[in-house]
């Protein structure tokens, strides 16, 4: 890993792909053009990921745009996005590859139907045959490795899987290859950008972290979130946008089961636009609160703490969830 990449290895940050120019600000602008406002650290790590060809591990609370970062990267670099959604019990048959046993069976039957089964040579032929690429079902990881054009591989919510699965990923992440016992080693034809996301619900293994660049994404500052909201809901009035984002920040301060995500601030902004609201008083807040708060108990808490603070005279009268 230490020495500069050998000539045979695919070059990181393939120059032939129309992608962002070679600088941090370039990456930032490219991401901005496809609707993702990255902050400095995110842009830098995205840049490093392309230059060094290393996977990126993105951690942070739910709803801060971890998955979106990968999608934006794929749009910005015009690469295909291959997504592997992780869940408990995900195994290699679903993530790497699987033999298409139905087809294999069919093949065997065709063979035995055609001639007598006494022919040893034909057995050899079938045997070699049914373990060839024709009978291989590629799953996301193999897809990403075998793709002829470079892709962006998103391994989402890696913390949902178990440690065994992480261990299996190591080969893919560090050497960009997959060993299939019957076929041999499949090496990457192009160098994918790999993004792993984690909600930090469990500690990932050292071995996995060692192979990745690390990025911690947090909820954005008021200013940046305002930019994001206004990028996605351009018609919204600046004053209203600021008010909205400030309220969302206030809500995040509370100890909620599920704090509102950035996507939800955007949804809320769009909803306010639809309703034609020009100010965010407590009446409007009460009516539209369900867009950002999605738990019964959270709603009570938010209504009590935040609803009060918002001006707008008669709150108790007609509101109430």
């Amino acid at each position, binding site marked *: 890993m230490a020495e500069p990449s050998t000539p045979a290895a695919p070059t990181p940050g393939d120059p032939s792909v129309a992608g962002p120019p070679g600088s941090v600000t370039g990456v930032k602008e490219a991401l901005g053009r496809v609707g993702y406002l990255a902050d400095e*650290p995110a842009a*830098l790590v995205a840049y490093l990921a392309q*230059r*060094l060809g290393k996977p990126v591990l993105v951690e942070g609370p739910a709803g801060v745009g971890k998955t979106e970062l990968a999608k934006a990267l794929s749009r910005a670099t015009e690469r295909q996005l291959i997504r592997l959604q992780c869940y408990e019990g995900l195994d290699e048959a679903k993530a790497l590859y699987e*033999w298409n*046993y139905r087809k294999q069976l069919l093949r065997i039957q065709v063979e035995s139907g055609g001639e007598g089964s006494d022919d040893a040579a034909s057995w050899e032929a079938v045997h070699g045959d049914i373990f060839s690429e024709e009978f291989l079902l590629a799953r996301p990881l193999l897809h990403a490795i075998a793709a002829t054009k470079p892709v962006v591989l998103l391994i989402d919510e890696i913390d949902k899987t178990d440690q065994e699965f992480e261990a299996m990923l190591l080969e893919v992440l560090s050497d960009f290859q997959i060993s299939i016992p019957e076929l041999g080693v499949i090496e990457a034809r192009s160098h994918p950008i790999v993004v792993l996301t984690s909600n930090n619900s469990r500690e990932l293994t050292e071995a996995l972290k*060692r192979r990745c*660049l690390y990025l911690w994404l947090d909820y954005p500052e008021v200013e940046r979130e305002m930019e994001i909201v206004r990028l996605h809901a351009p018609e919204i009035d600046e004053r209203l946008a600021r008010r909205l984002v400030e309220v969302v920040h206030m809500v995040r301060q509370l100890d909620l089961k599920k704090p509102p995500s950035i996507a939800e601030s955007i949804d809320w902004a769009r909803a306010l636009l639809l309703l034609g609201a020009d100010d965010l008083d407590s009446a409007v807040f009460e009516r539209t609160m369900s867009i950002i708060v999605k738990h019964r108990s*959270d709603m009570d808490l938010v209504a009590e703490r935040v609803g009060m603070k918002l001006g707008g005279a008669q709150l108790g009268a007609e509101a109430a969830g």
Partner: protein
Amino acid sequence: MSDLPPGLAARLVSFCEDLRSEGVAIGTSEILDAFEALDTVPWTQEDDFREALGATVAKSQEDRRVFELLFDRYFFRAAESEALGRGIGEERRYEGGERLDLDELRESIRQAIAQGRDGEMRDLARLAIAAFGRRGEGSGVIGVDVQRIRRSLGLQAQGRGAEGEEPALEREQINRFERHLRRELERALIERTEKLPPSRPLAELDRALPTSPAQDLAAVHRAVTQLKRRLATLGHEQRGRRRSAAVDVRRTMRASLETGGVPLRLKHRPKHPRRPEIYVLCDVSTSVTSASVFFLSVLHALHDSFRKLRSFVFIERISEVTDIFERERDFRTISERIGREGGVADVSGYTDYGRVWLEFLEQIVDDLGPRSTVIVLGDARTNGREPHAEVFARITERAGRTFWLNPEPRLYWNYGDSVMAAYERHCTAAFECWTTRHLEDFVNVVAGGTPLVDQA
């Protein structure tokens, strides 16, 4: 690597050494990555440099925090020692200190802090030091001086008496200004004494994540989420497959390939893992006051994660608080309500474990079964009363598993009126537990522990 200025490589390695000595796990491969990454960013840009280094060597939020602290300290010291070596000093650094109006200064500092402009804060910190030094109050001890300056500037965080109509400042913002003050005072000290103070390891307090009840709660919640996952899938592998009747067609067919398409071996679908029923008993007496907040937060977190959970608090008698937890969200309200209406505010306030077992057994004896898990949070101090270990034994026999979390260090168990040994014998396992770290250990043991999988 060749693009890096000479001397930087050695500095980086020694910086990584520092990080290692603070417990950040950095392997050689990470250092090499860092070099590779630094090659691709302009190393003269402090922010890029820091981020690139951070992304390659600090692989968790905690590590990142240590990294930030050390980065500041290390390169600050490096720069200062270089300056000392070459005899560079700042002349007339406190120019203008004499004609400063303290009120005006206070106002502009307030503004700079509120807007979070770093450069300005640094300049203002110098001015504040100058103005302050003029009044001859400097003690020479940096920590003391920082606090004195801060007080004389009237900087206070939100909540603690926002005077008049001045907008209150966030604590975090004030801390940033304090860091600038500290830095500037250090710089002045180094220049005065012409030597670097010895570098010390980070104080435990500094490196811990900023703690507030809410964040402790978050840590507890995380540990409990793990516990939930582990309990839910525990014994999955051992239990299913063989005994259950449903044949898994897909896996059977796959297996049949080895025998030329003849399904010789049947594969079964795995059985669903157990849905644990959990009973938590939590001691809230005075002897565990300090731990009971922690315990209640554990309970709180457990309630968020498990549906089949019944919780009890006890001192002298036992009282079920399941619905308080189900109705209330806010942790503070919960602890208040438990104190008020939990029905445990007893005459003596002394724990009576024996009686608690008797009552517990009576209340739930019909519900306890091999699928139940009983978790006791308590110090096993009976205040000299009858421990009724045999009743506890009956509870543990009926329940599938019993865990005991004791807020005292193992060393103190069985001293004085603690009868831990009498109970521990009957538990599946007992743990010391007063921090989230212990809680995580508990989770790990539960997860990996073969003896904990049901004996049936």
